[in-house]
């Protein structure tokens, strides 16, 4: 590699060094890679493969097996809508309908303004507060369709204020 390595690659190299370029640590390496890039870009998957001595196909195999890994960039706010059993029983389908109608996107998609990505997830483990969604690190419980929409509006407002 030339000296023109950007900051992200340098951070990735540090990660690879800390994991000893060991194939047994691939999942940890990919998690840290995703922390750096926000997702797993194709050329970086090749780079990780090269650096760990695993074939690119195998790295991609791992990246596509686990739901945590993303091959596409996500919006600024990642909405993780819980579809666990308790949330299902308490009406998560209605929350999903309200959110998809409000944002005009389906599960896995990102809004055109790049603000929100919607992702259905298995169980966030906050079953007593169901139905639940998580936006980035923040958890919102006891949702109703109205409450979910007003939360989205709060995020939009927050965005306008900082803009």
């Amino acid at each position, binding site marked *: 590699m030339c000296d023109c390595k950007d900051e992200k690659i340098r951070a990735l190299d540090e990660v690879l060094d800390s994991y000893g370029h*060991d*194939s*047994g*640590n*691939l*999942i*940890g390496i*990919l*998690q840290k890679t995703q922390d750096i890039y926000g997702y797993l870009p194709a050329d970086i998957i090749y780079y990780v493969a090269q650096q760990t001595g695993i074939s690119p196909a*195998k790295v991609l*195999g*791992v990246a596509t*097996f*686990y*739901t*945590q*890994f993303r091959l596409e960039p996500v919006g600024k706010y990642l909405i993780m809508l819980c*579809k*666990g*059993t*308790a*949330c*299902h*029983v*308490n009406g998560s*389908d*209605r929350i999903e*309908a*309200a959110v998809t*109608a*409000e944002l005009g996107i389906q599960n896995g998609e990102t809004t055109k303004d790049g603000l929100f990505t919607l992702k259905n*997830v*298995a*169980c*966030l*483990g*906050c*079953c*007593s*507060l*169901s139905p*639940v969604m998580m936006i980035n*690190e923040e*958890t*919102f*419980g006891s949702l*109703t*369709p*109205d409450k979910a929409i007003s939360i989205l509006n709060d995020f939009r407002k927050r965005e306008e204020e900082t803009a």
Partner: protein
Amino acid sequence: MRVIVGQGSCGIAAGAGKVYNALEKLMNDQDSFKLGITGCIGMCFLEPIVDIYEGEDLKARLVHVSENDADAIVNAVRNNDIASLSGLFIKDEDKSFLDQQTRIALRNCGIIDPTDINSYKARDGYKALEKVLKMTPEEVIEEVKTSGIGGRGGAGFPTWFKWNAARSSKGEEKYLICNADEGDPGAFMDRAVIESDPHNLIEGMLIGAYAIGAKEAIVYVRAEYPLAIIRLDNAIKQAKEAGLIGENILGSGFSCNIRYMAGAGAFVCGEETALIESLEGKRGMPRLKPPFPAVAGYKMKPSNINNVETFANIAWIINNGGEAFAAMGTEGSKGTKVFAVTGKVVRGGLVEIPMGQTLRHVIFDIAGGIRDGKQIKAVQMGGPSGGCIPERLLDTVIDYKALSATGAIMGSGGMVVMDENTCMVGMAKFFLDFTSKESCGKCVHCRIGTRRMLEILTNIVEGKGKEGDIELLEELCLSIKDGALCGLGQTAPNPVLTTIKYFRDEYEAHIKEHKCPSKECRDLLSYVINPDKCKGCTLCARKCPVQAISGETKQPHTIDQSKCIRCGQCIQGCKFDAISIE
């Protein structure tokens, strides 16, 4: 005095972090009381919870606390006038939720500070480890055998047997693994243990490692539990500093390192051989057994895997003796079990009780029965591998065998309670949707079988079911059970089989009459406005996200069925009870 804010994931989601910050802001240097945190007491329905202690005595437990109450709390503590907070006191009937429990695995949860090793030590922490290091590994295994404890991850396989098999396996290099990949939707007791009492897990693991002869122990923890990971990481560091993890532990000559790895989101990794593959950095696909992990597990070396809750009982068993543990429970199921009771109950949270009590006792006496005065229909146990137990079988006792006889399983302890408005066909579809997505794809029975079942169930809930679908589902269920490679596939048909067994009439209503008796399956419903009751307030029309409702102001409105997406927003908003579901 100490003011302690419950800071588990549930509490934080309910606003406990804001409460803590508000209290901290109001405190000043002259204040003699201390502010602290604890984990999750398991009364999630009351969060955020703030406890006020005088020494070790709990003076008051405040519930549903908001940041706006911070002023009153700080003033009350300063003036030693706790009674002024009586409006926030926990109610007696809610107290009974905790009073009816017997806590072993959860004994410290919501009491100690999970970020402080001394808080754990003050409650006999690491005493069991000290004791064990003076025993032989065989004696430790014998004590665990006496306790009769079975794997709390679901199968209930005797823990001592696994430990003994790993101990007897040839080889110097052995591994002890903790399965903290709590994937069953509806179960969160393992998260609560790690977040609220991480040293208890570490102590249990060290004892297990000593018993089987492992020098390395690994916790495989779900990535969806960021707070659990932070607390575990902190606890491991503290234990290392205290000489409880590492070389020559407490001068005994026994050495063991503990580390953790965060999973990346795959339900199948709860299966032990898939978990091992994942630990090795590969796709989490199950291996063929035998060889069993006790012979060739992680890195093909002898390995032993137990669940978090199992380890959480071990230190107690050593301190109190296996017999004390075995004295609780039934003939075939010893000790206590933790359940995550959720769904349509009044009081949802974590319940730890001795085996042998009835489901009815848990749901009605402890969890307070069904919300909004509705009727219970069924309780789902064991997550996607389990089944739905109908109301008429609620006197079934909690016991591995008795629960299996119903077609459900003990499982990891998820107990999702459903009322009359929950469609059981929809429930079966929900689980098959889950298992078909989570199927790793290695074996045909699971990969294709779950998909075919999901297609049939989807047709049924959309009103496109055909005569013979139920029989076809049953046939598929049996083939998948027989043919699938691992536990995921072998148990995936359970939600379908149990709902067909106990709620066949609901399936038939969907197929023959195109009706959903629980009024839940969207495609079989229509939202209708009663023109006699509608005042034309236009609220529903404004709320409708797809503009399916039209009408003049102060005139009855109508819903265009071809546009309606049946989201139910109109019915929630209507103040005149004019909209009904047909």
